[in-house]
C-alpha cells in the first residue's frame, strides 16, 4: 500500500498542477529572474543582452510568435509558447528551461508573457493544424517533394542544395536581416526537426519572417496537404548529420596517398577523405569583438603524400562575398567585405601540453597563419602566409619558399578552399610529420556579415593528425605472431601424440 501511496500522491499533485489555472502574477517573478535580461522587463525584446544577439530576443508586445502550430493568423496556443520555453530554440541564445523551471513555473511564465500583448484577449488561439494525414516516408514521396520544392520556389531563398543561400535580400518584420535556414542542418531548426515540425512550418509559415504559410487554401501559392508533406519529407532527407560538430571530435585525420593530391575538390579521393566539423565561435575575446556570427562551423578534410599536405576547408555561407559584386552586395545588410578563411599552426609543436596562445600565439611561441581571401569580384582569390606572435603582430612572408598555395570556389551555398604546403616547409614553418598530433585552429570571415579584421569567427586549438601510411609492420608482425603460436601449439601436439603412442605401445608390451 505504502509503495503505491507515493506515486499516487505525485499523480495527484500533477493533476492538481495541470488543473490549476496558470498564474501570471507568479509568472512575473519567474520572468524577471530568468527572462528579462534578454526579453526586457517590459517584454519588448530589449533587455540588456538584446543588442548582442542575432536572432534578436522575441518582442512579446506585438503578440507575433514565430513558432506556432495553430491555423492561419490566429495566435499561438499555450502549448506552442510552453514548448519553446521548455525546449528552447536550437541555434539561438534561447536555452531550454525545463532543467530549472518546473511545469507549473513554465505555465505561469507563459501566462505572464501573454499579458504583454492584448491579442490574446481579442482572439482565441486557433485549433492546431491536423497532422493526421502524415504519409509514410518513401523515395517516391521524397522525389515528389523535390519537385514541389522547385514548384513552390523554396530554392529562391533556401538554395538549390538547401544550404540557405538566398537570391533576394530578406528582412523580418522588425527590420533585422533574416537569413533562410540551412536545411541540411536540422540541429539548428528552432521549432524542431521532426517531419511533423517541418510540415507545421511549411503549413503555417513563420509569422514575422519572410517564410510564408503554404497551407492557406485561399492564396495562389498554397500547396495541397499532400504536397506539403512531400516537401517536409524532402527537407528531412537533406539532413547531413555527419556534419554536426561534436566537442569530442577534435582531430582532423589526414589520409596518406602515394600519388598527387588532386586540385579538383570533387575528386573521389577528396570525397573519401574523412571529414570532421568544428564549431566556430565569434571572436568575443579581444577588441574589436563580433557578437552575431552567421557562419557557425567549418568542415575539414586532409590528405598528404610524401611531398605535400593539403587541407580542404568547407563551410556553408549564404553569400559568396567579393567586394564589387553588386548582386551579392545587394543581399548584405551592411557594407560587404570579402569572405576569408585561415588555418593557424604553432611553428614548433611541442610533445607536451604547451601550445602558443590560441589567439595568434605569444611572444615566446609564434604561429604560422595560412590565409585565403575571396578577393574582389573579377580579380580572383588570393592567399598569404603570416607569422604572428600575439594579436596584432602580423608579419607577412613570401609563401613560395614554403610551397604554400590556396584556392577556393563557391558552389550551391558552400565555399571549398584547399590549402597546400610542402611537408617540410621553409625555415620558421611548422613541419608535418606523420603519426604526430599537430595543433591547428581555424578562423573564418563572413564578408556579408560585416566581418573583417578582428571581427571573425574561430575555433580553439584542435588537432591535425597525418595518419601513418600503411606499413609492412602492421601486416607481418601479426602474421608472425599467429604463425609462432600455431607452430608452438602444433609442435606440442605432435610431441604429446608421439609420447602417447610410445606409452600405448609400451603398455601393449
Amino acid at each position, binding site marked *: 500500500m505504502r509503495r503505491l501511496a507515493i506515486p499516487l500522491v505525485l499523480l495527484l499533485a500533477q493533476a492538481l498542477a495541470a488543473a490549476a489555472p496558470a498564474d501570471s502574477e507568479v509568472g512575473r517573478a519567474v520572468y524577471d529572474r530568468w527572462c528579462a535580461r534578454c526579453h526586457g522587463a517590459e517584454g519588448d525584446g530589449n533587455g540588456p543582452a538584446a543588442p548582442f544577439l542575432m536572432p534578436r530576443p522575441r518582442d512579446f508586445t506585438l503578440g507575433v510568435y514565430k513558432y506556432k502550430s495553430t491555423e492561419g493568423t490566429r495566435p499561438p496556443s499555450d502549448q506552442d509558447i510552453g514548448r519553446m520555453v521548455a525546449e528552447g530554440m536550437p541555434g539561438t541564445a534561447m*536555452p531550454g528551461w525545463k532543467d*530549472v523551471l518546473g511545469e507549473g513555473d513554465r505555465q505561469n511564465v507563459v501566462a505572464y508573457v501573454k499579458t504583454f500583448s492584448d491579442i490574446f484577449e481579442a482572439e482565441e488561439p486557433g485549433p492546431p493544424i491536423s497532422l493526421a494525414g502524415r504519409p509514410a516516408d518513401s523515395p517516391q514521396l521524397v522525389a515528389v517533394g523535390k519537385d514541389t520544392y522547385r514548384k513552390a520556389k523554396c530554392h529562391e531563398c533556401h538554395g538549390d542544395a538547401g544550404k540557405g543561400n538566398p537570391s533576394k535580400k530578406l528582412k523580418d518584420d522588425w527590420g533585422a536581416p533574416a537569413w533562410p535556414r540551412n536545411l541540411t542542418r536540422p540541429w539548428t531548426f528552432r521549432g524542431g526537426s521532426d517531419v511533423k515540425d517541418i510540415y507545421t512550418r511549411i503549413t503555417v509559415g513563420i509569422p514575422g519572417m519572410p517564410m510564408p504559410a503554404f497551407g492557406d487554401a485561399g492564396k495562389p501559392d498554397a500547396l495541397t496537404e499532400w504536397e506539403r508533406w512531400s516537401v517536409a519529407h524532402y527537407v528531412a532527407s537533406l539532413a547531413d548529420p555527419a556534419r554536426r560538430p561534436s566537442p569530442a571530435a577534435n582531430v582532423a*585525420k589526414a589520409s596518406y596517398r602515394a600519388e598527387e593530391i588532386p586540385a579538383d575538390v570533387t575528386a573521389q579521393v577528396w570525397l573519401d577523405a574523412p571529414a570532421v566539423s568544428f564549431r566556430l565561435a565569434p571572436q568575443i575575446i579581444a577588441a574589436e569583438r563580433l557578437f552575431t556570427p552567421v557562419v557557425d562551423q567549418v568542415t575539414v578534410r586532409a590528405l598528404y603524400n610524401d611531398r605535400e599536405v593539403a587541407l580542404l576547408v568547407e563551410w556553408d555561407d549564404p553569400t559568396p562575398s567579393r567586394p564589387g559584386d553588386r548582386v551579392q552586395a545587394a543581399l548584405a545588410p551592411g557594407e560587404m567585405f570579402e569572405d576569408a578563411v585561415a588555418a593557424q599552426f604553432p611553428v614548433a609543436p611541442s610533445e607536451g601540453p604547451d*601550445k602558443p596562445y*590560441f589567439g595568434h600565439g605569444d611572444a615566446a611561441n609564434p604561429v604560422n597563419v595560412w590565409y585565403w581571401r575571396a578577393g574582389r569580384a573579377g580579380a580572383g582569390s588570393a592567399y598569404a602566409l603570416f607569422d604572428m606572435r600575439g594579436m596584432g603582430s602580423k608579419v607577412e612572408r613570401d609563401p613560395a619558399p614554403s610551397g604554400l598555395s590556396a584556392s577556393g570556389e563557391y558552389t550551391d551555398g558552400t565555399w571549398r578552399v584547399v590549402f597546400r604546403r610542402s611537408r617540410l616547409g621553409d625555415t620558421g614553418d611548422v613541419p608535418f610529420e606523420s603519426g604526430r598530433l599537430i595543433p591547428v585552429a581555424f578562423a573564418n570571415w563572413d564578408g556579408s556579415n560585416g566581418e573583417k579584421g578582428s571581427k571573425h569567427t574561430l575555433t*580553439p586549438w584542435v588537432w591535425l*593528425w597525418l595518419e*601513418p601510411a600503411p606499413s609492412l609492420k602492421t601486416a607481418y608482425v601479426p602474421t608472425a605472431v599467429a604463425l609462432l603460436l600455431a607452430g608452438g601449439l602444433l609442435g606440442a601436439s605432435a610431441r604429446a601424440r608421439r609420447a602417447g603412442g610410445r606409452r600405448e605401445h609400451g603398455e601393449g608390451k
Partner: protein
Amino acid sequence: MKVPRAIRPILVVALAYAIVEAGIPAIGALLKPGTWPVVPAHLARIYLFFIANVVLLYTAADEVLWGRVRGELRYFFGADEVRVVRTLVIAAISLAGGYVAYDAVRPRLETPPELRAIHPAPPASFSIGGKAYDLSTLNNPLRADKSKFADHVKAGAELYFKNCFFCHGDKLDGKGHYADAFHPRPANFRDVGTIAQLRESYLFWRIATGGPGLPREGWPWMSSMPIWHRFLSETEIWQVILFLYDFTGQAPRVRDS
C-alpha cells in the same frame, strides 16, 4: 558436467577479468547512478597480471592437482578423438594472438590526457596598469555599504548579460550559446565545485587577468577567458562578482581566521 582441471584456472582468470572490467564499474553505478567508473587500463593490466600469477601458483603448488592438469593437457594435445576440437582451438588461439599483435602495432591515435588545473593556485599578488593587488588581503569593497548592495547586484547582472552570458549561460551553468565552441568549456557557477570553493579575491584575479593570466599549470594558452580589465572597470568586476554569488545563492569562501 565436470569442468576439466586445466580449464578451471582459465575460467577463474576470465571471471576476474569480468569483475575488473564490468563488476567494479557496476558497483560504482550502484553507488552513483548514471556513472560507469571504469578501472584505468594500466591498473586493470596490473590486477590481471597478479591474479593470473596467483592462479597459476595455486594450480602448480599441489602435486596431485598439477598432475591432473598435466594429464588433461597431454590428453588434449595427444588423443586422436579430440583432433577436430584441438585443431579448432589451436587455430583460434593463433588468430587471437595475431589480432592482439595487430592491435599493438597498428597506427593509433590517442589525444593526450588533459591534465589541466582548473583552479590553479593564484599568485600572491598581481598588478594592473601599475596598481598592485595583494590577493591575501584583497576584499570585495562593495560589500561594505549594505544599502547599495541591491544596486550593485543589478548593475552586475546587466554587465553579466552584456559580456559573460554568451559562454557562461543564462542560467550561469556554463552552457551559453557559444559554450560548446570553446575548449576548455566555460565554468559552471551553479556547481558547488567552482565559485563556492573560491574567495572573491580569486574571482577578481581570474576575471581581471583572464586566460593569459593563468599560471602554466592552468594552460593559459587554451583558456578563452578574456582579459577583462581591458573591458571592465575595477568596480564593474566586483559588481559582476556580487551578481554571481547572489544569483546562484552560493557564498564565497572566506579566509580562515
